[in-house]
């Protein structure tokens, strides 16, 4: 992220802080959205015979979220090994 030197005009660092907070939030939202779409594809019957999730779908969803979270962790570790951390 570089560049947080000291004698800048005051407004700049503040902009940067707001920008980073927005970037961080966007990242989490995107993670959640991809996880949601992916687990729907993997677990939910697309014939839509009813509007409830049945028991099999519900437990598939729980496990899918858990596994997605673990995969996220593994990939995160690999990426942060190669690069400077955020």
């Amino acid at each position, binding site marked *: 992220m570089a560049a947080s030197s000291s004698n800048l005009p005051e407004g700049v660092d*503040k902009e940067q802080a*707001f920008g980073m*907070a*927005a970037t961080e*939030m*966007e990242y989490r*939202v995107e993670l*959640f*959205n991809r*996880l*949601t*779409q992916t*687990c*729907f594809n993997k*677990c*939910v019957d*697309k014939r*839509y*015979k*009813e*509007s*409830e*999730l049945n028991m099999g*779908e*519900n437990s598939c*969803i*729980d496990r899918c*979220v*858990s596994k997605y*979270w673990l995969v996220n962790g593994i990939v995160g570790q690999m990426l942060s090994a190669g690069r400077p951390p955020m």
Partner: protein
Amino acid sequence: DGLPEEDKVRMATMIDQLQMRDSLRMYNSVVERCFNDCVDNFSRKSLQKQEETCVMRCAEKFLKHSMRVGMRFAELNQGAATQD
């Protein structure tokens, strides 16, 4: 907490806007998904009854799914996950 009042307001506004944008995107994605899964016949301009039923079930199912994922996701974010 040490933030001036003006910055707190601005941060809250930003969060509101990101959430609004996010729900609108989710809405768009549900429409696309349920259309794709339920509508395949283009011999008429209007929806057939069973297409309509399919769309409603699809959207409801997706919303329930999304809420369940949200709960599980929040648990994991708080490190409250249990083993197997």
